[in-house]
Each structure stands twice: as structure tokens, then as C-alpha cells.
């Protein structure tokens, strides 16, 4: 049973996220799943910045922000300390951005997976370094324009596809890998719950649209997230023991154009014939996901 808002709100209102921020909504749901007996580690990023101006905090659970690239290592140390104290009833959870996860914190994360700490590592994926002003990350999708890989006369934006982080996590033979979306909160809740039941590490990647960085109106966050799922660009699935164990079937397949056109980061693709041709590449990414994961 998902606790009702009034019953258990562990992520208090009043923080400084942009209105409509996907990761703020996701964090609220994640904490509903963890309950109070948890310690949360958040590496540097938007979530850390908007929740921790000194002397204020929306975190009603113990929370620590160490550095940008060491969330998984700090969580490992906390988990080891709890084991030493005989307090394995308390769970440690990381909630970190895609930059902290896909790029700079990858070594520490790989170490945590390999050592087998029973820590759910939750990556909120807004597909760029947002905190520093929308810079390219290896999680940034193909053809998105960012401030460090902008579109221009000689550029369509990101020239490489999104890094397949769930596959990298799975290659560590960890217990549980899942993707979720803030637009499907019950599914997100259940996946976090499941991660918490694992004896070893788990990896949960949550697609969290960012209105400021992606360029869409703040009231559209949930809609954009759903569209991403329905195009096949943000597939929702679970893997256990190396096997695909569940997929969220696409309810009504949407062409990628619909998703791309709704966002400022892709608008350059719709300003010329050549740009429109580029869109086909993104459609191929979606088709590949649909085929590989059986999303239809």
C-alpha cells in the first residue's frame, strides 16, 4: 500500500526546485517507498542544491551530500558502518543525477556494485548536467542541444546515442536493475520497494523530465515523461539475474517527432529539411528499443 500523502511525507515542500521539476516529484515518491528507516546520500547536482541551503532542509530522513563523484563510495562506507553496528535494518539509498552516475561517479559506482553492498542506487536521469547550466552528459540523448554541445551550423547537438547505463549495471551481475519514469509513480514506487528487498546492490534509473533544461512548460512534466515512454525512447523494464523480467508495454505508440517537437532542446531539428531528416535517426533508436525489449 502506498502511504497517503498526509500519512507520510518525508520530502517536505518549500524547497527551491524549479516549479515542475521532475526529479523533485520523483524524490518525493522514492521516499514514500523507503519510509523513515533509511539514510539517503545525494551527490552534487540540482537535487542537492535545491534541497540544502544551510539551515533549511526538506529531508525528513537523515541525508548527506558529500561530493559530485563519490555518492556510491560514501553509501558503501555508511552501509559498512551500519553492518559494524549491527543495524542492517537501516537501509542506505543513493539518489543521484545522471552526471554523477553515468560520468564522473562511474568508477565509485562500479566499485560499490562489485563489492555487493546492499544499496539501491537510484539515478534520476534528466539527461544533462542541469545544475551547472544544461551541459552535455553521456546520458544526453542523440541530437539534443546542450550548452556544451549546442546545435549550430555544423552541429545537430549530441552526436552520440545515450549511454546504456542499465546494461553496464547489469554487467556487474547485480541483483536488480530497473528503469522507471516519474510519470508512472506507482511503478517507480514499486521498483524502489523491490530494490530495497534485494540482498545485494540494485540500480534504478528514473527518467525525470527537466522543464528548464529541456525547454517545455512546467505543467507538462508528466506529459513529456509519458510521451518519452510511449515513443520507446524511455523504455521501462526490470532485469533480475541478468534476465529481462518485466517490461511496461507501450499503451499507444507515439512517433518521436511528437516528443521532440514539444521540447526546446530539439527545436533545431524542425527548422530545416535536413533537420527533419536527422529525426529519422532518433526514430531508429526508439525502434531498436521497442524491438530489443518487446515494448509493443
Amino acid at each position: 500500500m502506498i502511504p497517503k500523502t498526509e500519512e507520510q511525507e518525508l520530502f517536505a515542500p518549500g524547497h527551491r526546485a524549479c516549479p515542475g521539476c521532475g526529479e523533485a516529484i520523483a524524490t518525493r515518491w522514492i521516499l514514500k517507498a523507503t519510509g523513515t528507516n533509511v539514510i539517503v546520500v545525494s551527490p552534487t547536482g540540482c537535487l542537492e542544491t535545491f534541497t540544502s541551503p544551510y539551515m533549511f532542509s526538506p529531508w525528513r530522513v537523515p541525508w548527506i551530500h558529500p561530493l559530485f563523484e563519490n555518492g556510491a563510495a560514501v553509501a558503501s562506507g555508511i552501509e559498512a558502518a551500519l553492518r559494524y553496528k549491527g543495524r542492517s535494518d537501516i537501509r542506505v539509498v543513493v539518489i543521484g543525477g545522471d552526471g554523477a552516475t553515468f560520468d564522473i561517479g562511474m568508477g565509485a559506482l562500479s566499485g560499490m556494485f562489485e563489492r555487493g553492498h546492499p544499496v539501491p542506487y537510484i539515478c534520476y536521469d534528466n539527461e544533462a548536467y542541469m545544475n551547472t547550466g544544461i551541459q552535455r552528459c553521456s546520458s544526453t540523448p542523440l541530437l539534443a542541444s546542450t550548452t556544451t554541445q549546442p546545435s549550430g551550423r555544423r552541429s545537430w547537438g549530441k552526436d552520440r546515442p545515450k549511454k546504456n547505463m542499465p546494461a553496464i549495471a547489469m554487467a556487474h551481475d547485480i541483483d536488480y536493475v530497473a528503469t522507471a519514469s516519474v510519470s508512472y509513480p506507482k511503478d517507480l514506487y514499486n521498483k524502489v520497494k523491490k530494490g530495497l528487498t534485494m540482498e545485494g546492490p540494485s540500480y534504478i534509473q528514473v527518467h525525470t523530465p527537466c522543464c528548464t533544461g529541456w525547454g517545455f512548460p512546467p505543467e507538462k512534466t508528466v506529459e513529456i515523461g509519458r510521451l518519452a515512454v510511449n515513443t520507446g525512447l524511455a523504455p521501462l523494464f526490470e532485469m533480475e539475474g541478468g534476465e529481462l523480467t518485466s517490461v511496461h508495454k507501450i499503451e499507444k505508440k507515439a512517433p518521436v517527432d511528437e516528443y521532440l517537437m514539444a521540447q526546446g532542446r530539439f527545436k533545431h531539428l524542425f527548422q530545416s529539411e535536413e533537420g527533419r531528416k536527422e529525426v529519422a535517426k532518433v526514430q531508429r533508436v526508439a525502434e531498436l528499443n521497442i524491438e530489443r525489449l518487446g515494448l509493443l
Partner: protein
Amino acid sequence: MKKMEILEGSMAVTLAVKACKPGVISAYPISPNTHIVGALAKMVADGELDSQYVLSDSEFSAASIVYGASAAGVRSYTASSSQGLLLMTEVIYNAAGTRLPMVLTGTNRSISAPISIQVDHQDTLSLRDSGLIQFYVESAQEAYDMHIQAFRIAEDPDILLPVMICMDGWVLTHSYEPVELINQKAIDTFLPPYRPRHYLDPEHPLTFGSYAEDNVMMELKYMIQAAMDRAKGKIGDISSDFHRITGHAGAGLIETYGPEKADIILVGMGSLVGTMREAVDTMRADGISVGLIKVCCYRPFPGEAILGCCRNAEAVAVLDRGSSMGSEGPLSLDVKAALCNLERPHIFSFITGLGGREITTETIQKITEETMEAVKSRRILRGSQWVDLNRSIL
């Protein structure tokens, strides 16, 4: 009952750490810390030490792991050296800023490039501004005693900072010396279990690692400086306690050797001080008025104590095993700051013993002679003198 053993320096450290019962140990191998981290791992494997030993994927992670453990309220320990310490740097600043105590052993080794595994102090000196308390030891016995005191210092509620014991690689880590061990009961009396007031605890949820705006940044940084200042007095108290309970000499900020009112005072840190003592004896037998100051505690820097010992000297010669490139020897800068605005003594800076280059009693005699000569001819030597450079390869 006193127990004397012939021990490798690394084993002396290992036994001290074991006796302090850290809940979490994490480390990454780098020469010359390997004997310490290997011996601790074996103790855990043999069930002699009840710690969680977390094998890290890098020094950056090792430091982060002990940082996390400390935040969860558990005593924690790591050891590193050289490149490893540089890789830990960001975490060490962060631990000091978050006021999370931990103990590190810095087995001194030079910094690449050029790569070398031999001793100098460039690695630990480069952490001087981080909020890390640093002690330099001269012998295996001191390494043993200082590690036990380090936990008390780090965890003192008036301090709450990381503490590093710096010991010269190979010279101290890999040579055998007689070490008098302390019985476990005395250590337990001196160092009770760690019970922090603030830690990550679901029953009392706290937020650690906040974002500071300019309205609080100065104050939070000042509090680190104030803790460092308080530590000078606290180290004295803890040292007296250590002596009372164990009978062993406690930590000092500085140690002096030779006449109280020497004309020339030599200043150094680490194993080099042993050679300096010998040189002082030889020179005094020749009628030279020379003494020495061993800087035991480098951060917080004991400027007042040094000032107290140097007021009547003609000259002070500082020996550094590292350089602040573009400036001079870091230790000499601190000594100069401590003695500034005095007409005398003149302070001379010498850089020596980099990358394991041997420092003999002759080297020290030469440094002393050069200092005396400069004083006599009223020459002021600016910057640092790099001792015995082989000019043919410059």
C-alpha cells in the same frame, strides 16, 4: 607490564590501529602503505580484528568510504601515500568541512612526475591547507604512540577534524625498530568507544553537507580555523592523559634538542630529525652553538612555540623535504611567518632529500656552515637553497 618487540614500522602502526578498534577500514594499495593495509586485512581475515574492511576501487573511494562511515558515527581509518593522497584530496577537504573525524596514515613518498616510490614530504605537505591535522613522526615508537592519540584528537568534540600521521616511506615503514607496546586495557581507558553527538541516524534525521551561501560561508570556514587553534591546547591535554595512562611520552607540538640558547637553530620534520640530532652532537663537540627544533605537529602550526625557542638565536635554518613550486619550502614559510617582524633571527630555507636522496650528517653540517657564513657576512639568502644539486644535469 611493559612489552618490547622488534617490529617493522608498518607493523607498529597496524598494531596501534588494531588496538583502537576502528569499525570501518578502507584502503587502496600504494607503496609504501602496502604492509599496513595488508596486515590489517590479514587481522580481519583471521578474526583478530572486528572491523568492516572495505576494499575500495581507488583512493578516492577509500577516503569516501571512511568519510561515509564517520558520518554514520563509526570510528574509521585509512592509509595512503603520494598519488593516492592527491587522489584523496577532495575528500579530505570535504571531511574537514563536514567536521567528520577520521585517521589516516600518510606514508610519505614523492609526487609524480617524475615517478618514484622514494620518500619526501611533497605528498602530505600538499594537504596543508585542507583542515587536516598533521603530525610527523621520527620513529616506529612515535608512529605507534601517535596513531593511538590521533583517534582521540580527531574525535574530540572540540576538534572533529581528520588527523594524519605522516611517516617517512621505507625509512620508517619498512625498517625494524624496538617498539614498546601498550596493553589493551590502558588503550581502552585512554580511548573509549566513539560516541559522536551528530551522525546519520533515522531516529534523529539530520542534514549533512549543506549548500552555504555567502551569509554563512565565512563563519563555517572560520570554525575550522578555530577548531585548529583549539586543537593546539587540546593536543597538550590529550598528550598528558596519554602519558598518565600509558606511561608513554605523549604528543607534542614541537620537541627541542641541544642547548636552550643556541646561536643556530635547525628545524626539520620526520625521520630526518634523527640524522639532525647526530649532526648537532658532532657540531657541538666542535664548539658550535647549535640546537634543533623538531616540528611534530605541522597543522595546526605551532608558531608560538617556535617563536618561544628562537627569540635569542642568530639564525634559523629550516630543512624542507618538499617545495611550494614558485615560492619556497612550505615549512620555511611557516617558520618565517611565526618569526616575522623580529629583527633576529634570520631565517634560511633549505630544500633537501627529495625522492629519497640521502641526507647525511655531513649534509646537515654543510647547511649549518652555510647558515653561519651567511650570518657572519650579513648576507640574506632569499628563497630556498636547493642542497647539493648536481649541476651537470640541469
